């Protein structure tokens, strides 16, 4: 294999006197799907926020395609798509307007795929309903529609399947499998079993737990 897409070296993170993980090193290759697992409070969200660049309260080093993260922050940002606990959907805007806005702020998201994406997540017919009158799951689907529109090679997803119904989950899993097959990478946490996503590398945070 070539240079790993993302390389994590000796990561250490502590919160409120408790070491969440230490000596955490792993590589994410192109074409790999990494599932971060661990019980509640083991630090999955914390790890994902560190990897995406949202949090800087850690020690250790991150490399993007071989370069230290600090030097290539912008390039990394352009090639990464993050999906957090909050769906990032404005209630007063319609699904369509929400996605257009995402296309404007993120160069890897292509506005032309918008209608197709809404179709794929099962929101055809809801294009012009303001999001605050959608259900919990529908709101998350709006945000997930970005996955159908992006060219970013790395996806970081924090519990993307929360509140999504069975069929929706199966579809999303297929999408992940396809993305990985095309050479993209995914890092995700979920309490679901991944059954339709092809080979999965598991990263168990309990193994790196502090003493």
């Amino acid at each position, binding site marked *: 294999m070539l240079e790993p897409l993302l390389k994590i070296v000796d990561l250490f993170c502590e919160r409120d006197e408790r070491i969440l993980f230490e000596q955490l090193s792993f590589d994410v290759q192109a074409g790999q799907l990494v599932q971060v697992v661990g019980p509640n409070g083991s630090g999955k969200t914390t790890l994902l*926020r560190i990897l*995406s*660049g*949202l*949090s*800087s*309260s850690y020690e250790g080093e991150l490399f993007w*395609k071989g370069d230290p993260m600090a030097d290539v922050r*912008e*390039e990394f*940002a*352009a*090639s*990464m798509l*993050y999906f*957090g*606990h*909050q*769906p*990032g*959907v*404005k*209630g*007063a*805007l319609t699904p369509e*307007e929400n996605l257009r*806005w*995402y296309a*404007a*702020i*993120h*160069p*890897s998201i292509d506005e032309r795929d918008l209608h197709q994406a809404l179709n794929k997540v099962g929101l055809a017919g809801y294009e012009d309903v*303001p999001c605050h009158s959608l259900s919990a799951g529908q709101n998350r689907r709006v945000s997930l529609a970005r996955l159908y529109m992006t*060219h*970013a*090679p790395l996806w970081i997803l924090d519990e993307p399947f929360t509140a999504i119904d069975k069929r929706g989950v199966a579809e999303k899993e297929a999408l992940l499998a396809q993305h990985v097959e*095309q*050479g*993209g990478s995914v890092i995700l946490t979920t309490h679901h079993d991944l059954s339709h996503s092809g080979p999965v590398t598991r990263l168990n945070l309990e193994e790196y737990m502090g003493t």
Partner: protein
Amino acid sequence: MTSMHTNTSDESLWRLFSAVLKRDLLLSFRKKSDLVNPLIFFLMVATLFPLGVSPQPAVLSEIAPGIVWVAALLATLLSLDSLFRSDYEDGTLEQVILSPQPLMVVCFSKVVGHWMTTGLPLTLMSPLIGMMLFLPAQGMLGLMSSLLVGTFTLSLIGAIGAGLTVGLKRGGVLISLVVLPLYIPVLIFGTGVVEAAAMGVPYDGFLAIMGAMLALGCVLAPVAISAAVKISVSG
């Protein structure tokens, strides 16, 4: 799949700026109340004084410049609290920070949007309040021009406070503490302009100083705002 570089050319910055501005204006226009509320607040605070202080024209016209300015200042301040808050709560702010686009431009654009929906209408409404408080007619132009320049400075400074407090549960009063001391120069020069205008004295010197403060704000505030927002979000 190739990595994508950001195109930070002027044109793409302008596109970003206008996309953000358009969205914020759209959000305001969709909730009409956001547009009207600061105005009504302005009006009401200004009416409290004749009730609380004294209804006599002589007294009122003397304190009118100060009252209009204080009311405008408070109206701006209160509306600022929500500048980043809803974006923070629903996770859009996180996404903006993670995007490769320059945060400074996004912040500046949001401030412009805020000013267009509060400062500008406030300025347009001020003669009404001036009249209610018996401000001499010759003072009106000074009132409006000082508010036009001053409210934008207020929005810029206030946005720093809004950025710093956005991560906190009860930002409400804290933002006032942080921002009010910084507002004082604007208040002093603003009322200075109005008083000079009401007395028929030339006031362009003061207005020039306010312009200088605005220019300084336009240059420095976006840096501080984006730093503040980044700190609040990435804890």
